[in-house]
């Protein structure tokens, strides 16, 4: 990588074709573990370090979840399929696109910008 400051470092992760929708890659970027996800054709990157207790967030299942129901209704409405990442340790749920934790939006997993350049998936840190 170039000798630019950390903030502008670009890391080529893989060919875009090697990260199809629904898949993820976990990469070590100069000692920082980062998960790169393809959610319906869009790429998103999250720090593989959970804001709860520093667990391996990005190694958990990518899934959907039950949406909150109103007025205590005992109903199950399943949604957000493919948009939810459950931490591999204690299972806190995070929205992949924003890093927001479903139980408390103030709890956020760190996200990184991802672009596609020359057919390469590139993470900006």
């Amino acid at each position, binding site marked *: 990588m170039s000798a630019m400051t950390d903030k502008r470092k670009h890391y080529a992760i893989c060919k875009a074709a090697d990260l199809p929708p629904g898949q993820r890659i976990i990469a070590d970027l100069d000692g920082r573990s980062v998960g790169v996800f393809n959610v319906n054709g869009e790429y998103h990157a999250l720090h593989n370090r959970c804001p709860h*207790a520093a*667990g*391996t967030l990005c*190694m*958990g299942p990518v899934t959907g979840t039950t949406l909150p129901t109103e007025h205590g209704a005992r109903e199950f409405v399943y949604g957000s399929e493919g948009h939810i990442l*459950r931490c591999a*340790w*204690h*299972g806190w749920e995070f929205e992949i696109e924003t890093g927001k934790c479903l139980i408390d939006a103030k709890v956020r997993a760190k996200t990184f910008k991802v672009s596609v350049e020359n057919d390469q998936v590139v993470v900006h840190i």
Partner: protein
Amino acid sequence: MIDCDVHNDWSSSNVLLPYIDTTFRDYLLRGELPGARGSFPHAHRPWLHPEDFRRHDIKPTNDDEHYSFMRENLLDRYKPDVAILTGEEALEVSTLANPHYASALASAYNNWVIDTWLPRDDRFWASIIIAPQDPQGAAAEIRRLGSHPRVVQVLASHGSYRPYGDKFYDPIWQACSEVGLPFAVHLGGQGGINYQPIGGGPTTYYWETHALLLQPSMTHVASVISNGIFERYPNMMFVVIECGVTWLPSILWRLDANWKALRKETPWVKRLPSEYARDHIRMSTQPLEEAANKQHLWDVLAAMDGENMLMFASDYPHWDFDAPDDMQLPKEWLPKIMDGNARQVYKKLPRQLVPNDTKAGVMS
């Protein structure tokens, strides 16, 4: 640093076939199992974890990986000096109605852990698992293996047929006391003959239930103290593993108050229940309660003398794992909780190296 709750799992209960008594080998080989071949004979609890009770970043597919993943994710990463193995499903023998089969399975597990796990790593120390519904068989097992140099405790599930201070279990306490090993209960065994794991009737959801599963451990604490276990076996320690900790001061306050008025009911109890607890009961930390205000948690822990009563446990590789480098405890308590207290309880462990030189302090 000492990790008091490390789960050594298998890929298939078939690993026990070479280690089980011939009569019961047929049961395990051809008998009914609760799942596919290779599942372990037990009555499962009626609450199923909706996402699996194991961590999702650790998925061993064979027996070698059970160890190599543990080495990578626990032993070499956090560098405990001691990992006390607590088995996995073997604890669930306590749910079986047939005490003979239950004891045979427990013995097979103990043979297996001694033969295959202990030689793998010099950080390993073993618990031997007993079938508490078979007190005589359990006592024989304790006498058979209690003097093994790497066996440090006798373990049963906290889900139980009766409270553990009950007369029914006298042979177990007697045998533990003879061989000088602590008796420990670990969260589990909430099914089959242990039919009352939740007071008030069965709860509905896993997370709801998991928060309440500690209930039988309250029963056991009250039972062992009121039944005078520590008067009859003054060398005994009772260890409560994975049952939460902050309920202890509350229960001890209540027991103390009641004993003052009604001592006559149990003339063998000569001291305050809280004094027996202080001298004879230890609790493992995981899963340590997570308080919004850390100080509130620490105040409760101080009320139970947490610095001296608690022993660190990670519960690797389960979903409610506590990482040793992220313990929300007062720094000055860490040398004892992360190391010193367990060495007092598990007397076969080597003494601590140098006072004040603890890895726990560095990691805090």
